[in-house]
């Protein structure tokens, strides 16, 4: 595999992980506009661990994911009472606080950024992390917990009066999403080798939203498809240089006009299965 192909695949992998970090809280209708902050937490803490304390990368990776997840749980509690656009604004505000923290913190290199990070991210460890995330999300969604999550997304009041502890599940999913962003951040830091606070600002958070929405947020397979296409697209358009972002923008406009629900949807798979003549009608597969 050429180094170029490998780097593209690594970026697709990391971007998919980041798309999942938006997708996961979204399964309970929590729209976060600040996932970049959790990514930043994962990136900075893992970098500090491997560079300053020579902690082995796998340990630093897991620890920084857990760290981001815990911060996510803390943010998840106030987020419970806030919905929709208001939650987007709240998480945006939080992300800005985190960004400025890293921008001013001497320990993390302040405005100079954090450099001298070793290249420890490989295609293999990206694939392992991504595989584990997909495994866990798939197991969750195909169980009774997944049905409860879907119920919360559709009507949380009704779900709660049917015995679903929505507080627990919402905070859990917010924390899980933050953890995934932290893992993505750690992998990013050890591939980019230099990070500064601007890597994790508003632009990054929105990019994560776009990957997920483009692929579709009702199906587990939406985030990888969205992230893959939107990572490859600008690469394929490299020959037109500055103009490529115009095409990227046009793609967004076309997509939101003609397929706002994303490329992949939950009921798409359901319909495909039933068209295959699946007789067992009571089984929504």
């Amino acid at each position, binding site marked *: 595999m050429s180094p170029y192909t490998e780097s593209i695949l690594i970026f697709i992998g990391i971007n998919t992980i980041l798309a999942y970090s938006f997708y996961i809280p979204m399964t309970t209708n929590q729209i976060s506009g600040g996932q970049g902050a959790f990514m930043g937490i994962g990136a900075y803490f893992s970098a500090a661990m491997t560079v300053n304390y020579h902690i082995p990368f796998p340990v630093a990776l897991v620890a920084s994911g857990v760290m981001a997840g815990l911060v996510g749980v803390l943010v998840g509690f106030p987020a419970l009472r806030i919905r929709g656009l208001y939650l987007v604004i709240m998480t945006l505000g939080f992300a800005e606080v985190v960004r400025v923290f890293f921008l001013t913190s001497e320990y993390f290199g302040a405005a100079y950024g954090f450099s001298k990070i070793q290249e420890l991210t490989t295609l293999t460890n990206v694939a392992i992390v991504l595989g584990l995330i997909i495994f866990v999300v798939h197991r*969750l969604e195909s169980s009774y917990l997944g*049905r409860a999550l879907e119920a919360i997304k*559709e*009507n949380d*009041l*009704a779900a709660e*009066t*049917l015995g679903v502890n929505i507080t627990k599940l919402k905070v859990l999913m917010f924390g899980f999403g933050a953890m995934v962003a932290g893992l993505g951040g750690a992998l990013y830091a050890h591939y980019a080798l230099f990070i500064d606070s601007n890597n994790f600002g508003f632009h990054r958070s929105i990019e994560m939203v776009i990957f997920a929405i483009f692929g579709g947020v009702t199906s587990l397979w939406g985030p990888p498809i969205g992230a893959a296409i939107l990572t490859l697209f600008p690469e394929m358009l490299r020959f037109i240089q500055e103009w490529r972002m115009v095409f990227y923008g046009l793609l967004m406009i076309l997509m939101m006009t003609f397929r706002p629900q994303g490329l992949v949807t939950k009921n798409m798979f359901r319909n495909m299965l039933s068209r295959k003549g699946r007789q067992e*009608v009571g089984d929504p597969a």
Partner: protein
Amino acid sequence: MGILLETKLLSKRFNGFSALRGVNLSIKAGDIHAVIGPNGAGKTTLFNLLSGVYRCTEGMIVFLDKEITHLKPFQISIMGMARTFQNICLFPQMTVCENVMVGRHAYHETNLFKVFLRPPFAKLASETKIRKRAEEMLDFVGLHEKRAQLASSLPYGDQRRLEIARALATEPKLLLLDEPAAGMNPYETEGVLELIRKIESQGISILLIEHDMKLVMGIARRITVLNFGEKIAEGTAEEIQNDPKVIEAYLGSE
């Protein structure tokens, strides 16, 4: 028969507006109890307080001899109180069967090892049981053959039935029905009446809000009348019909 649910001086204020004032209510086990009253009398507020959706401002609620005043809706549901909503609250993008299965959430074995480490494509043992039970519920309300449809594709009357099936799936001791016959024609209303009787015969007590007087008078053993957030009368259908305060509330004073 014992008292299933009791409220003592239950009050709810919204920013100074008093939606419910000092309501005492007691529901006997096995009863069909109706709450009636003009629009804005506080009937739905009462339901929201009982099911834990709102917190009361004053007073207390006792269910099955335990105070539930400050419990959350899911805890109250697990204790055995289920409800439907005036404005239907289904999960529209889920199938009819899945809607009912959510009602059995609390009956799953909560073993995360089994959730995450089961072999691929293997279902949890409890999942099969729960699907079976959900289908029984659908059979009970007469929606079994529509179980694979999306809930949003059901006609209005069936959506109300589905909401009832979903509430029954929690195996309640008390079922709160918020206007189960709203917007239905006389034929459909008759069907709802039949369903309520069927639920009663299962030993489930029912607390009912309804505007359709024919339905209320025909089915409720006890009726509570609310007006402007206060209880103005309580008794059998006959007693209520002859109560001057009730007549005044509905028709205005002379």
